[in-house]
């Protein structure tokens, strides 16, 4: 129980830190960037939107603590301010749809990447020093050196444009109506394939090396030695003894990896014009839509925290040592 409690404590503090950071960043910068931002939109927005922006950037005379309290109260009501790029729309409304696309795309990609990467890593450890181990891990590391968006550009260029195997962007075609039918699902998969492949290829390396290196460590443990001495087959020792125990460290590195992968996924979306949060983020940057940026920042960060909580809950179930209350 201690494990779970301390973890939850960490997440609570992290969540609070993120929310507070979001409040402080526009207010604590030197030389009042908030009013510079504000001045830039004068005349372009309706008065009520200007008032909302003024509040959000902290350009009122209320004491900081009062502003902070109002900000928290607004967040609690799901009030993220008004978007500038999509003018009268509230930020939350703009983010909602993009959020679903991003979670769907990154979720599927991360799952595939974890399973494939861990599998490859385990196999490389099993064949340590063999041809597979000599070729696959360096190749995967090479792919990981590509920035996500560059890998995305290459895949889009060759598989999409030159060979015409896949559509050139967006989440589904202009002629298919969203619905639960074969045609639309096919459309969805063919549009999602390249972005997903990009994220998987670029993120494989982490899982592969954690798994390979932990496996190699575990194979030297006493209980594996004992299993060898008992005369168990190498395959059995590998799968039932070493792999099961080596899987846990992969799970612990999941949290940190997720942040990196999500960052990469956002850039990938930009290349594929995939209508997720990454694409919205680009729009927000181009039109200097600060409230939208903040909304996306909060949404992504809080979801990553949530994903971490879920993984830790899983860890708690899988690893009996975390439950060891004496």
């Amino acid at each position: 129980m201690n494990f779970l409690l301390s973890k939850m404590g960490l997440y609570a503090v992290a969540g609070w830190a993120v929310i507070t950071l979001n409040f402080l960043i526009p207010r604590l910068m030197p030389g009042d960037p908030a009013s510079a931002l504000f001045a830039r939109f004068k005349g372009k927005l309706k008065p009520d939107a200007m008032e909302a922006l003024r509040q959000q950037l902290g350009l009122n005379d209320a004491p900081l603590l009062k502003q902070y309290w109002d900000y928290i109260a607004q967040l609690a009501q799901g009030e993220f301010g008004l978007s500038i790029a999509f003018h009268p729309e509230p930020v939350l409304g703009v983010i909602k749809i993009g959020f679903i696309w991003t979670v769907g795309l990154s979720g599927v990609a991360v799952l595939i990447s974890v399973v494939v990467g861990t599998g490859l890593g385990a196999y490389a450890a099993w064949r340590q020093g063999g041809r597979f181990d000599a070729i696959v891990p360096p190749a995967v590391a090479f792919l990981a050196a590509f920035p996500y968006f560059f890998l995305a550009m290459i895949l889009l260029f060759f598989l999409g444009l030159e060979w015409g195997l896949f559509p050139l962007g967006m989440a589904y075609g202009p002629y298919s109506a969203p619905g639960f039918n074969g045609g639309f699902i096919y459309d969805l998969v063919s549009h999602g394939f390249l972005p997903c492949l990009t994220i998987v290829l670029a993120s494989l390396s982490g899982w592969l090396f954690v798994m390979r290196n932990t496996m190699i460590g575990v194979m030297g443990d006493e209980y594996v030695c004992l299993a060898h001495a008992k005369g168990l087959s190498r395959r059995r020792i590998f799968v039932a003894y070493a792999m099961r125990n080596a899987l846990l460290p992969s799970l612990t590195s999941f949290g940190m990896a997720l942040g990196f992968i999500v960052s990469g996924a956002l850039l990938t979306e930009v290349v594929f014009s995939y209508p997720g949060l990454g694409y919205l983020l680009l729009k927000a940057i181009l039109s200097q839509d600060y409230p939208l940026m903040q909304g996306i920042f909060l949404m992504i960060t809080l979801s990553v925290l949530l994903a971490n909580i879920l993984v830790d809950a899983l860890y708690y179930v899988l690893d009996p040592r975390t439950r060891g209350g004496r």
Partner: protein
Amino acid sequence: MKAFWSNRKARLGSLLVGGLILVALIGVVLYDANMANAEAGPILAAPDSTFWFGTNMQGKDVFIQTLYGAAPTIFYSLLIGAGVTFLSILFGVTAGFFGGRVDLFLNLFINIFLLIPSLPLLIVLAAVFQQHSDTISGPLIIAIVLIGTGWAWGARVLRSQAMTLSRRPFIEAARLSGDGSMTVIFYHLVPNMASLIGTSFIGATTFAVGAQVGLEFLGFGDPSNVTWGTNLYWATQNQALLTGAWWTFLPTGLGIAFFAFGLVLMTFALDEITNPSLATRRHFKASTGQQPDLDTAVVHSMPPKDVDFATAEGET
């Protein structure tokens, strides 16, 4: 250093990184900003004997842009890498050395920074900082923001190493002989973590290349500067993917990829030298002949488990 050179990954990695640094230097020596921005030829010419890498939408020579753009990207990556490593040492080693309440607080701080996805935070920070763009130049903003957010990973690794080392007799001895905390940290602890700090520096530089180029790709750089990041920014702005102008993004992208790959190879090599069991066996055999003289303290601090395993595995 001998152990480092006898490792194939280390050699290839250093060659890649060194080669690209050389390319960057050549680019700066041969060309200047005016030449890189000059409209040298026809629009979107495919690579030929005059324009080796073709020209872009503005008729600029992609070969010159690739060579000239290498220097700022590589230079800032190394600078950011150094800054990130400095903060990692500061936070990580302090936490590990002092332990107790200091560690509790700093470790919480480190863990929170590790949890926050970097890119959205970078964007929010860069957007606010950009309002200063008259006083601070684009690349510098990116550098400040990246140094401020990138240190947590290294701090975590250095912290655990500092924790193990500070319980060792030689640190105890230094403390008992009356050295102050700062002296112990900087004269006894940090020098013994050299190889790990090296790894952190390489890792931080890798992070810096990717994040810096990513931010510039999104338009946070100064678009009139020629860097690897802005090259890719302009390639997408000009719809290189739809016009089929692969030569406008491929050379720059591959330059970034090879630089980052070279750095990753060097990290692997350092990992294998400090923990020989990780090597593919060929390397392992090659490096058993000599004691790694990189940093004996770190080698001795490896858990005995790995050492046993290395010998056991070598026999089978």
